């Protein structure tokens, strides 16, 4: 039987091509994902390990119990601890480091790199005068204020050379620093494409902490001292709120973080690969069903000459195995290529891919082969069983054995029940798992129902097809001729479009909601924030307040206080100005009352503490002093503005080391570019600061959401491509089956164009059928998921992106047109004489 199967595969090479391609794409996706993520993990692991080679023990500030101590930031490590640690037996060297955000302006004055990855730190020379972490490539280390060193990558990108004067911004005003050296580093942030500026330790301490303070102390063990021994030795001299960690543990933690991050990415990619494979299942099942139908006589002959049912089933499954094997092997090879290509693509787009060899894990090879073969055999299983049911007598029938279509009643009943249950659960769902269950049931229900739905939906297309005359009529009838086949083909496309539409609806609605949240409560013309989203120096607020073009400004200052038994965040605002800058919805009192000891609180916080307008409470500030505050108003909070708002005049004196989250500004000339320029100048053209109007904020949100959406589109594109293959496959097979008919139509006078049009229209009908179902389901899911999101986001409302939905329908039409190209041509070229010959 194996030989029969092999011969069959070889005989139907062309007809199996689309199936092989479909499986191949899915497998390539899987293996590409595995190869890419493994390569990435290995490279990152390697680069992070290098970063910890000089660290045997690290001493870090540690706050065991937040609520017990005084509010405020964790204390830093002091110079005397460093000195003590360096003097411990078994310590070869001790390094103190301090760092934070440092924006480097490029030659145009813009921020070099992105805000999140612009870092600054100290150069800590060891006994030999060098810092082993940062080997210099050119120049010398920074030694005094006004000097700095830059990482090689950023230096190359910006074109700065040793001796250049560069504008650098940390927290305060822009600093004009002289570039004294360029260095290389294994720092993960730099490997990921960020910038790193190094200052001498004293300068760095001044910028990031206080003189004599460090964020971290790292120790290198003397030969013969183990990390754990060193750790126990250090622990004896540690003050409270600090801890010692071995280098091994740091490296392990880092490795775990990396692999967790990558496994998240791998999971997401594999989910999309799974979707492509799932779509592929429909195509495989369709192909084998058609092959079995076409070979009815052959299979019956096998049965007639003594093959058992089981042998017939097995022969079809062996065929599927061979197809799966070929597809899996080619898919694996393609996947390795994709993995390699993806790495260079990501790094060419500025992504973070450290160098390293291409890693093809054995697991990727095994799972790709297994997935390809199993999926194919699984999908071919039903057709194989059907093949076994062909009675031997079918071999004797001279007439083309027409498969009697089994009743769809049972199928329709099951489908209707599943769809109804799914829709019900999805609508009644109160959490994600309920929604997921409902969505899953509904999709399966609709799959099961597609044959039933195909008739009325395609019949509805009748009037549109009338202008195409007989070709249109025949196309419509051909499309519903085999509802199961049409359904399977359309379903393949439906899956992709359901997901694309659903995500688009959700993304559009979420974008609108975030946008509303971010901008609705803002009356200010501009909001000034740090590019890295780290806190701003209080200098910014001061400078802005002094600028003549500013009519009102207020920082949002971060503070903490113990109230009752817990710690609450306080937001310090300028009581006099805030009313002009924010637009909050007050349920009691108003923002005008925000002055002195009077504060406003959001409804949630008020409810939690049982406060009402007029309630008073005692707050213990960071400096340990107590104050009595009175609630003068209760407002509806949102994700941007919430909590207890206090007048800065009251709050600031209690803060030891404060910074602002953002500064809101209202200007004399509104929110135009000119006003923005004025503010930029007033802030000393600081590359670290972003001055955003409401429009800028909206644009930024839209950009982020669109980027995300485009990535998802890209990932789902594979599923759509597989669906196109499915339509091509179905049409090609149908054309092959209808050779005789097509020959007759040609003989009695339908010209080549008419034949082509007939096939194209059939393709279009099937694709649009899938498209309409997919878009419909997608909108439903968007709506159902939205009602979940709506509970967490007050500003959420369903936004139906009609334009995009139209584009998706056009996409379905394009799929249909594209898929029909080859089958239509084949049909038109078919030899009329051999086609009409009786078999």
């Amino acid at each position, binding site marked *: 039987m194996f030989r029969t199967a092999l011969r069959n595969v070889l005989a139907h090479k062309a007809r199996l091509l689309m199936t092989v391609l479909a499986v191949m794409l899915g497998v390539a996706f899987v293996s590409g994902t595995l190869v890419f993520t493994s390569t990435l993990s290995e490279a990152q692991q390697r680069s992070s390990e290098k970063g910890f080679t000089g660290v045997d023990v690290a001493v870090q500030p540690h706050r065991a119990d937040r609520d017990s101590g005084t509010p405020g930031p964790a204390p830093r490590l002091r110079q005397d601890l460093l000195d003590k640690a360096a003097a411990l037996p078994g310590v070869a060297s001790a390094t103190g480091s301090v760092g934070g955000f440092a924006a480097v302006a490029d030659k145009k004055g813009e921020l070099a790199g992105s805000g999140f990855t612009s870092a600054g730190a100290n150069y800590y020379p060891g006994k030999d005068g060098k810092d082993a972490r940062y080997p210099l490539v050119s120049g010398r280390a920074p030694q005094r204020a006004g000097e700095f060193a830059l990482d090689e990558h950023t230096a190359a990108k910006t074109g700065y050379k040793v001796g250049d004067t560069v504008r650098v911004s940390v927290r305060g005003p822009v600093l004009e620093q002289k570039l004294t050296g360029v260095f290389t580093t294994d720092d993960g942030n730099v490997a990921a494409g960020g910038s790193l500026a190094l200052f001498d330790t004293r300068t760095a301490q001044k910028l990031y902490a206080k003189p004599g303070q460090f964020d971290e102390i790292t120790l290198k063990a003397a030969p013969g001292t183990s990390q754990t021994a060193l750790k126990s030795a250090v622990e004896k001299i540690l003050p409270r709120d600090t801890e010692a960690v071995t280098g091994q543990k740091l490296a392990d933690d880092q490795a775990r973080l990396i692999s967790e991050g990558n496994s998240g990415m791998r999971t997401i990619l594999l989910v999309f690969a799974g979707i492509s494979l799932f779509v592929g299942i429909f195509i495989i099942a369709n192909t084998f069903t058609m092959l079995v139908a076409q070979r009815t006589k052959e299979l019956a002959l096998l049965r007639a000459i003594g093959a058992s049912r089981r042998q017939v089933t097995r022969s079809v499954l062996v065929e599927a195995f061979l197809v799966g094997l070929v597809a899996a092997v080619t898919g694996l090879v393609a996947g390795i290529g994709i993995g390699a290509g993806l790495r260079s693509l990501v790094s060419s787009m500025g992504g973070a891919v450290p160098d390293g060899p291409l890693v093809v894990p054995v697991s990727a090879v095994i799972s790709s082969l297994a997935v390809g073969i199993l999926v194919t055999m699984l999908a071919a299983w039903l057709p194989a069983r059907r093949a076994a049911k062909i009675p031997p007598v079918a071999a004797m029938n001279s007439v083309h054995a*027409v498969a009697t279509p089994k009743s769809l009643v049972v199928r329709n009943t099951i489908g209707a029940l599943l769809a109804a249950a799914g829709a019900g659960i999805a609508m009644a769902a109160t959490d994600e798992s309920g929604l997921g269950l409902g969505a899953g049931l509904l999709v399966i229900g609709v799959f099961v129902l597609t044959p039933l739905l195909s008739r009325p939906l395609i019949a509805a297309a009748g009037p549109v097809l009338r202008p195409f*005359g*007989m070709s249109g*009529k*025949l196309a419509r*009838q*051909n499309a519903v*001729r085999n509802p199961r086949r049409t359904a399977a083909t359309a379903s393949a496309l439906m899956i992709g479009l359901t997901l694309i539409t659903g995500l688009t609806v959700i993304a559009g609605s979420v974008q609108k909601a975030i946008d509303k949240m971010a901008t609705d409560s803002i009356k200010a013309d501009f909001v000034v924030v740090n590019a890295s989203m780290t806190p701003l120096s209080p200098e910014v607020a001061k400078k802005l307040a002094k600028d003549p073009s500013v009519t009102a400004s207020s920082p949002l200052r971060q503070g903490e206080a113990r109230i009752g038994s817990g710690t609450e965040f306080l937001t310090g605002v300028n009581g006099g100005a805030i009313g002009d800058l924010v637009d909050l919805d007050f349920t009691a009192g108003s923002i005008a009352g925000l002055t002195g000891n009077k504060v406003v609180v959001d409804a949630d916080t008020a409810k939690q503490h049982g406060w009402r307008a007029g309630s008073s409470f005692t707050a213990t500030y960071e400096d340990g002093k107590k104050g009595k505050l009175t609630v003068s108003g209760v407002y509806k909070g949102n994700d941007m503005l919430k909590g207890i708002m206090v007048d800065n005049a009251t709050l600031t004196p209690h803060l030891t080391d404060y910074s602002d989250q953002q500064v809101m500004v209202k200007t004399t000339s509104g929110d135009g570019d000119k006003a923005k320029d004025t503010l930029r100048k007033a802030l000393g053209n600081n590359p670290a600061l972003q001055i955003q109007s409401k429009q800028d904020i909206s644009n930024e949100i839209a950009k982020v959401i669109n980027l995300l959406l485009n990535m998802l589109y890209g990932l789902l594109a594979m599923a759509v491509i597989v669906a196109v293959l499915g339509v091509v496959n179905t049409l090609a097979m149908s054309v092959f089956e209808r050779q*005789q*008919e097509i*020959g*007759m*139509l*040609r*003989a*009695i*006078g*339908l*010209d*080549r*164009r*008419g034949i082509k049009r007939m096939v194209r229209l059939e393709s279009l009908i099937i694709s649009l059928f899938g498209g309409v179902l997919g878009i419909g389901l997608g909108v439903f899911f968007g709506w159902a998921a939205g009602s979940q999101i709506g509970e967490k986001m007050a500003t959420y409302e369903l936004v139906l992106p009609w334009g995009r939905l139209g584009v998706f329908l056009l996409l379905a039409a394009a799929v249909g047109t594209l898929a029909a190209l080859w089958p239509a041509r084949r049909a038109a070229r078919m030899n*009329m*004489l051999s086609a*009409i*010959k*009786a*078999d």
Partner: protein
Amino acid sequence: MTTSPYGAPTAVRTAAPAAVATDLTKVYGQGETQVVALDSVSVEFRRAEFTAIMGPSGSGKSTLMHCMAGLDSVSGGSARIGDVELTALNDKKLTQLRRDKIGFIFQAFNLLPTLNALENITLPMDIAGRKPDRQWLDQVVETVGLSGRLKHRPNQLSGGQQQRVAVARALAGRPEIMFADEPTGNLDSRSGAEVLGFLRNSVRELGQTVVMVTHDPVAASYAGRVIFLADGRIVDEMYEPTADAVLDRMKAFDAKGRTS
């Protein structure tokens, strides 16, 4: 004997023939594998005449029909339907000619399973976008005895009924000429006789012209004239044939085939 100098004995025809082949040649393949299917065949098919083309398999009878019907290309000579030279037409014009001037009946019925009987009958006119001639259509349907079954799908009809639908389809467009390729090949003898009777009636009563390829002497006996092909040439002709006479003539081929 290639063409007959005589008119058909049933009626005197003065009009031009429905179809004419002059030195029609058809060659398949090239070089050593070259096969001459038609070797300079000249023949006329007169209007309102029922002609059967007979010959052993490989004699070129189907090829002659395919070439005359514009289904296959010609290697040399000329093939005309009415006064239209087929060899001068491109595919599109040829398709139109088949649609408007020629009716076809195939051995395997070749009906569209998705259309009902009536829709199958009017299919060529629907393709052309023409309205069928109602009265003529009724007459045709009446003649082939399908009045009660027009709404049935092909798979709800017997083989004989299906072939009658095919006959009606060929007739419905009032073609200049009808070509039938082994029309009874897939039918039992009773259904076959019915179909052949309709073909004969369509000639006698409706004035149609029919050319039928067959290897069945009984089928040929329904025709008014039989031409015999062998090795791509017309070798004989017979008017008002009987089944026995045709059978005898065919046996001669067999004998020749065996002795040569």
